[in-house]
């Protein structure tokens, strides 16, 4: 499947898409209503391009169908359920049939294979087990491949390290930030990478950077690969990185990808950056049509040096809901955060305020001062502001005005920071 001829694959995808759309229309009232509203019928899908006629599905739609409104099969056929954490509202539910679990295992097995994993390997799976898709997703993949999975789940670092040493685990699966933490603890305890037997790591469930990859590879002596996915679509495994590390291979025999402009909602061409939209074309339990992921990436269909013909998406660098366009340049709060993290003693509590006093956008970045960088001398404080502005300029290419503010003075809504305030009027 992964090296299939593109034309054969398109034919295969079209058939699957037509079946999925038909099933969704007939079995999920939500889709019937949505299709009818804009007057589109399953029969209108005559070629792959016709997918653009279909309505989008958003996280809000899934939330409103809580808990089982999106299921396309009888509940007795559902064998497993996962949900999102629901940090920003009601969780969204994902239901899997036996065949769905098999597909999930299959796509994750591809990720493990890309990380040089075989049935001989020992996978230390420290993604959380439970409603979160990370733990059980990797578990199904390891099972499918016939590898040994240690279902240690997240946390308990001492135990993790003991198992790493005693069982000589070969593949580590967790979030990149936890891997980084593990690496630091190993270092602190004087455990060399020769004392453990890791050869690769499959890291995902949060955004990370190339710099983090290099650090993880060096510290743990591994190949660190990226995995992408989301609970609404299946969980991790939608796209997985090969050792060439030039993008993540999308398993498009199961998930049909599009890139759209999130404002105009028009489909973009190959290589253009935009919002990833995914359609499941094999899922039975809960087909999802044109799901707006809000993740920003671009896709190439060029054949990879590894020989696979599946399309590749670039590392996700931001989310549409926090993307800003300043003087025509795209800026993500995560870039500001990265700049702030480069300065010792600074807390990454910040707020970006965008205004347009005349015809030009201005950005002010408010950063909470901390005890460790506070000085009683004015010139030092001004130096700190200048240094922050310089680091941000290096990161985003735009000059910003930095203001140090008092600690805990920036607004937080329900404990979550309000990162962006945009005062510009666009009407």
């Amino acid at each position, binding site marked *: 499947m992964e090296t299939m001829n593109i034309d054969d694959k398109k034919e295969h995808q079209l058939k699957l898409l037509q079946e999925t759309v038909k099933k969704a229309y007939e079995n999920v009232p939500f889709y019937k209503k949505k299709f009818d509203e804009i007057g589109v019928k399953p029969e209108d899908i005559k070629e792959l391009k016709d997918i653009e006629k279909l309505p989008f599905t958003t996280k809000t739609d899934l939330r409103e169908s809580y808990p089982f409104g999106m299921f396309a099969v009888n509940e007795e056929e559902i064998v497993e359920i996962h949900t999102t954490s629901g940090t920003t509202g009601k969780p969204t539910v994902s239901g899997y049939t036996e065949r769905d679990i098999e597909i999930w295992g299959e796509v994750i097995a591809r990720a493990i294979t890309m990380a040089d994993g075989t049935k001989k390997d020992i996978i230390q799976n420290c993604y959380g087990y439970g409603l979160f898709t990370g733990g059980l997703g990797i578990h199904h993949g390891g099972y499918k491949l016939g590898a040994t999975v240690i279902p240690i789940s997240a946390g308990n670092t001492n135990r993790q390290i003991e198992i790493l040493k005693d069982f000589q685990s070969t593949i580590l699966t967790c979030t990149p930030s936890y891997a980084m933490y593990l690496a630091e603890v190993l270092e602190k305890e004087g455990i060399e990478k020769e004392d453990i037997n890791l050869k690769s790591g499959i890291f995902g469930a949060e955004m990370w950077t190339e710099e983090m990859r290099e650090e993880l590879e060096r510290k743990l002596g591994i190949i660190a690969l990226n995995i992408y996915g989301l609970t609404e679509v299946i969980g991790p495994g939608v796209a997985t990185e090969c050792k060439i590390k030039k993008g993540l291979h999308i398993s498009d025999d199961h998930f049909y990808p599009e890139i759209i402009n999130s404002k105009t909602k028009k489909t973009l061409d190959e290589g253009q950056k935009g919002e990833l939209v995914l359609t499941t074309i094999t899922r039975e339990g809960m087909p999802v049509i044109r799901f707006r992921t809000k993740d920003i990436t671009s896709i190439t269909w060029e054949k990879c040096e590894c020989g696979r013909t599946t399309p590749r998406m670039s590392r996700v660098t931001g989310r549409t809901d926090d993307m800003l366009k300043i003087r025509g340049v795209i800026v993500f709060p995560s870039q500001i955060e990265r700049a702030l993290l480069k300065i010792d003693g600074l807390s990454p509590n910040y707020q970006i305020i965008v205004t347009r006093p005349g015809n030009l956008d201005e950005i002010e970045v408010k950063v909470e*001062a901390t*005890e460790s960088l*506070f000085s*009683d001398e*004015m010139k030092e404080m001004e130096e700190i502001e200048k240094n922050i502005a310089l680091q941000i300029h290096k990161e985003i290419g735009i000059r910003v005005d930095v203001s140090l503010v008092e600690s805990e*003075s920036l607004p937080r809504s329900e404990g979550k920071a309000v990162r962006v305030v945009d005062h510009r009027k666009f009407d």
Partner: protein
Amino acid sequence: MNIKQISVFIENKEGRLKKALETLGNAGINIRALSIADTTKFGIIRLIVSDNEKAKQQLQKDNFIVKETDVIVVEIPDKPNGLSIILDLLDKGEINLEYLYAFTSNKTEQAIVVIKLEDVEKGIKYLEEGNATLLSQEDIDNL
């Protein structure tokens, strides 16, 4: 001898200075000297107070960022150009002065200055050799 000064970071917006002073007032802390350095955006309040530990605690409890710094407190000689005499002593030692602020007391006629130096120890040495009157924490408490 060096004296501990308390510095407080405040945003340059209405009510913040007042809030900081109220915090100290409510805790029964006496302010001996105060100066403010500010830009359009933020300010640094520098204070000599009666009880540093308590002042720090109370301010931190109200989310203020606080720092203690070593300064020197000197009585200005009761002569013409009294302050220049002090500054000349520091110049002689080639000691860089970061900032200074003056205050007066009900108990003495003399003006008193708080001085922040790059090198506090060296400054004390030169001032003492020049017979300047350096105040101790006890002297300040009795002002």
